[in-house]
């Protein structure tokens, strides 16, 4: 039930339609290059509108999203050539962000013609004119953005992922778990122990906060222990209780790594109890993340529960298969597929609430100056929110899958996250949740980072 909106541009009249190209350019190279095109009287199409920013490093992906929201048919992002940055490294950092954004846009089915990147130096007036002409020509080829996506025909709602797998019998660690929690609490090693307790609905577990050694019998462990308890570390737990004992599966431990890396917790505030895990259940089957999980044993932990872990071969492709399935669609189909997903978004922000790496005290979705993300739960606001969420997790998401588990509208956020994790792994050689001493991939760069997507 999307809202008709005055701001969404009306369906273009194809007879008079002219592509609208917004160019975000850096002040020192491309803007000056465009100046040079002027002084050289190099003619190019009038469809472009330049927004001047100090550096390509200042070009926020949100600006690009916003430009599309405001009816741009295409966006061109341009800065200094590598090595030429007025601020020495702005364009190197920007290049990584653009790489991720480029991949995200493509994955969502935005035609490549609509989002273009270039390096244009202050001396390349000719190149500026050529790039604009070329991008405008590309836009003429793909035509106007359809105000409502779709037209891709019948689409399957479920992907052809691997068949659901049964959940293995959980390891019996409850006794040792309780004993360890009791010991930690009795020894005053921790002030609170966070584990799982019985939920109020049959077959559900839920987080349990144990503060007294007498209460440890509330702790349980089985295949329903889905919650990533690391999330609670940044939700006032330390402030309220002091030292925290935390039960972590291997995926949860990766989130703890992320929090350490981003300085959200101090290592000594948390004592980690690792639980060997051979899979949890989501929607009655083995969770997709578990198909490709190669470690029952969490890293970084202070103690670990002992169990004999049966050998479970990692032979699945997990989300990679579904990503490939999405990528096989035509761009128009992909766009429509995602559109249908995002249309269902209620903006309840459960995905944000459960994410261990979403810890900002004020999410940009809640900021109004500017209104980064339209509050309206319609096509525009929902698209922006889901893009922003995915982009902010690029290189950070540890793949715990909680966002997708809790989404009341079954939006496949895990595919977005996993796709960007692929990009980050393939392009920057980085996997989130590994080494807490590494810089997150979007806060660093290599001179030789790929830039084939940049003109």
């Amino acid at each position, binding site marked *: 039930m999307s809202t008709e909106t005055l701001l969404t541009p009306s369906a273009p009249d194809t007879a008079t339609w002219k592509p609208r190209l917004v160019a975000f350019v850096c002040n020192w190279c491309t803007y000056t290059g465009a100046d040079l095109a002027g002084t050289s009287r190099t003619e190019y199409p009038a469809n472009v509108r330049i927004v001047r920013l100090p550096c390509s490093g200042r070009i926020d992906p949100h600006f690009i999203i916003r430009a599309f929201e405001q009816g741009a048919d295409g966006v061109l992002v341009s800065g200094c050539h590598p090595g030429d940055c007025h601020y020495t490294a702005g364009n190197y950092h920007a290049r990584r962000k653009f790489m991720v954004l480029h991949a995200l846009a493509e994955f969502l089915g935005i035609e490549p013609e609509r989002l273009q990147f270039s390096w244009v130096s202050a001396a390349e007036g000719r190149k500026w004119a050529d790039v604009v002409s070329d991008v405008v020509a590309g836009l003429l080829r793909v035509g106007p953005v359809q105000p409502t996506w779709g037209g891709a025909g019948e689409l399957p709602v479920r992907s052809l992922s691997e068949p659901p797998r049964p959940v293995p019998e959980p390891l019996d660690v409850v006794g040792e778990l309780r004993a360890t929690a009791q010991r930690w609490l009795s020894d005053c090693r921790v002030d609170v122990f966070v584990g799982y307790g019985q939920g109020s609905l049959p077959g559900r577990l839920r987080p349990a906060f144990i503060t007294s050694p007498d209460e440890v019998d509330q702790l349980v462990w089985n295949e329903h222990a889905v919650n990533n308890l690391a999330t609670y570390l940044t939700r006032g737990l330390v402030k309220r209780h002091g030292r925290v004992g935390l039960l972590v599966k291997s995926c949860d431990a990766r989130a703890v790594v992320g929090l350490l890396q981003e300085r959200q917790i101090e290592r000594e505030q948390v004592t980690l109890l690792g639980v060997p895990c051979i899979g949890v259940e989501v929607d009655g089957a083995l969770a997709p993340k578990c198909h490709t999980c190669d470690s029952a044993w969490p890293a970084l932990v202070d103690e670990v529960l002992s169990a004999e872990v049966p050998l479970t071969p990692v032979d699945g492709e997990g989300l990679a298969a579904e990503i490939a399935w999405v990528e096989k669609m035509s761009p128009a189909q992909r766009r429509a597929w995602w559109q249908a997903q995002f249309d269902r978004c209620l903006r309840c922000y459960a995905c944000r609430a459960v994410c261990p790496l979403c810890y900002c005290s004020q999410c940009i979705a809640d900021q109004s100056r500017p209104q980064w993300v339209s509050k309206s739960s319609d096509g525009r606001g929902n698209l922006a929110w889901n893009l922003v969420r995915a982009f902010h997790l690029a290189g950070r998401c540890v793949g715990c899958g909680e966002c997708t588990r809790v989404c009341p*509208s079954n939006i496949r956020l895990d595919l977005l996250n996993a796709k960007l994790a692929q990009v980050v792994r393939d392009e920057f050689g980085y996997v989130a949740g590994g080494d807490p001493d590494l810089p997150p991939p979007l806060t660093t760069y290599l001179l030789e980072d790929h830039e084939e997507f940049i003109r």
Partner: protein
Amino acid sequence: MSPTTYLADSAQAVLTAILAAGQRVVAPVEQAGLLAFAHVEQAEQAQLIGQTRASAKELAFPRTQRLFGYRFGNPGVELLPGEEPPAPTVLFGVRPCDAAGLAILDGVFGAEPADAPYLARRARITVVGLSCDQPQAHCACTAVGLSPTATDGSDLLLTPLAEGVLVEVLTARGAALVDLLGEALRPGAADKAEVTARAEAAMAPRALPAGLADGLAAAFGEAAWADAAARCLGCGTCAFVCPTCHCFDVVDESNLRGGQRLRVWDACQFGLFTLHASGHNPRADQAARYRQRALHKFSYYPRAHGRPMCVGCGRCVNACPAGMDIFEVAATAAAGQG
């Protein structure tokens, strides 16, 4: 005077007749692996088993609604109309809990000064309820004084019988719809008590303690709220799937040319919900926010209106990412007071 009850072959048959009468229908359909209310054109599209993930309130109280628009001049501003309400619609297959939710919303938005945008939409909705014969694990309508066959909020209520379906005509709007359906309905009557009893028996026993409203009010200052809310992560899922939650925000969206003022859903569990511009927040922590939710549903509202602001659909319990159970929390808090 027309009869107040009819019989029909099946709920599906009633739907077929409604569609045949040219009515626009919104009914539960399967989308992306979950049930959701959506526009249907054929009776077979409708899924008349189970519970939709989101409630039925969205048709009357959409996630986003344009209150009005405006166009900038130089000088001056020109006001433009708000949204055009959708065409008259039959909301079909609404479970009694959801229908009761609409009745509660009608009370809230209808109270003077009334809420025109809601009423404009609501006036075009005919609710065809469908009694519940297969309750879910999280169902709790009996705990809040409703039943799997309750009529509250429905214009028509269909109750599946051993054979055929009982159609109760509950309002004039319901009667008007019946008039369009012709021979699909046969005047007749049946007792639905057995259906009710069977469904209630299938439900997990849930009850709210007596004197809950006062008990909760008395428990306002209890420190135990912090423990009770420890799990809550402060998302809006419970409010957004709830049939009675109606909090909203009002925002502008604009560009150089003009803009629009929108009403969008909001939730009391969000930290920003009550944040003052000065930075002061009357409900500064999740404990206070969860307490507000529990007390609004089970204390403030019942004290003013004599019934909980809850229809027992259990969606919030089912959907909560952290396993919060408002029935459990409310009962515990009130008991702790005693």
